[in-house]
């Protein structure tokens, strides 16, 4: 886990390569319980919605992005994660998660790192993008 004093503006978190598998999405939907059939697990429903195939639920994509931050800074470090779903995220396709530190500040007794965060596809397409705020420990 990095200390606030050791982090620099422009520093990158990741990139981390990952894949949302059919099984992983089905498992997530078992907990989330969206109405069925849906475009997340049923290919016909996805195609009827204009998709090429089944897609990853937005809140699952967001959870994957949060994981990038908790792996870096600790399980309760995320203070804010604000994302825009730009393009549908496909199943079984390589995804890259990365974030870049854009601001470092101390606020309300916390040491905060603000970053831009992205989920990219195999051709560099921006599936999900946004901003995050992470609290870091201090050496002091």
């Amino acid at each position, binding site marked *: 886990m990095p200390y606030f004093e050791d982090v620099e503006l422009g520093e990158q978190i990741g990139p981390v390569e990952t894949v949302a598998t059919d099984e992983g*999405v089905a*498992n997530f939907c078992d907990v989330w319980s969206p109405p069925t059939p849906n475009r997340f697990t049923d290919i016909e429903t996805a195609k009827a919605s204009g998709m090429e195939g089944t897609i990853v639920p937005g809140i699952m994509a967001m959870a994957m992005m949060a994981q990038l931050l908790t792996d870096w800074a600790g*399980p309760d470090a995320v203070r804010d*994660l604000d994302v825009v779903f730009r393009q549908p995220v496909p199943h079984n396709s390589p995804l890259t998660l990365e974030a870049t530190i854009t601001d470092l500040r101390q606020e309300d007794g916390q040491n905060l790192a603000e970053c831009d965060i992205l989920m990219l596809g195999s051709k560099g397409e921006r599936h999900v993008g946004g901003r995050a705020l992470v609290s870091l420990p201090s050496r002091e």
Partner: protein
Amino acid sequence: MTMQLNYDRSLHEKEHRAGPFEITPEMIRSVNVSLSEKGAAFNSDEGAKGEGFRGMIAPPTLCSIFVREVQLPDIGLDFGRVQMHAGQRVQPIAPIYAGDLISASSHLKEVYAKTGRSGTMVFVVWETTFRNQDDEVVAEVQESFARRE
């Protein structure tokens, strides 16, 4: 010129509630499997205690799965027919522990129009506050839906 949007503005003042929902260890583990989440604090009481928590905690965005349990009304917006999930914001405030009972309370936060190269879109934003069994706020979640002409 500001676009005049017609919808039920009284919904800004109205709270829609749901829950409580139990955060079970099985639920957390199932989400962990989906995400290949190996973080010790999310996987066992022992792992969490080793990181300073009193027990196993949920990943920071897990409460989002309960937003859809709140029965939100049609706001009566007379714009567009196609709606999509445009964005999501989660602000974790306190850890959510396995065994916690969390309740949701949602209200209409804002409705606004944006015009770009592809035309005008109207964004509808709902804000949900999650509280645990001790009435402690554990997270704020905002969901944005976009409607196209």
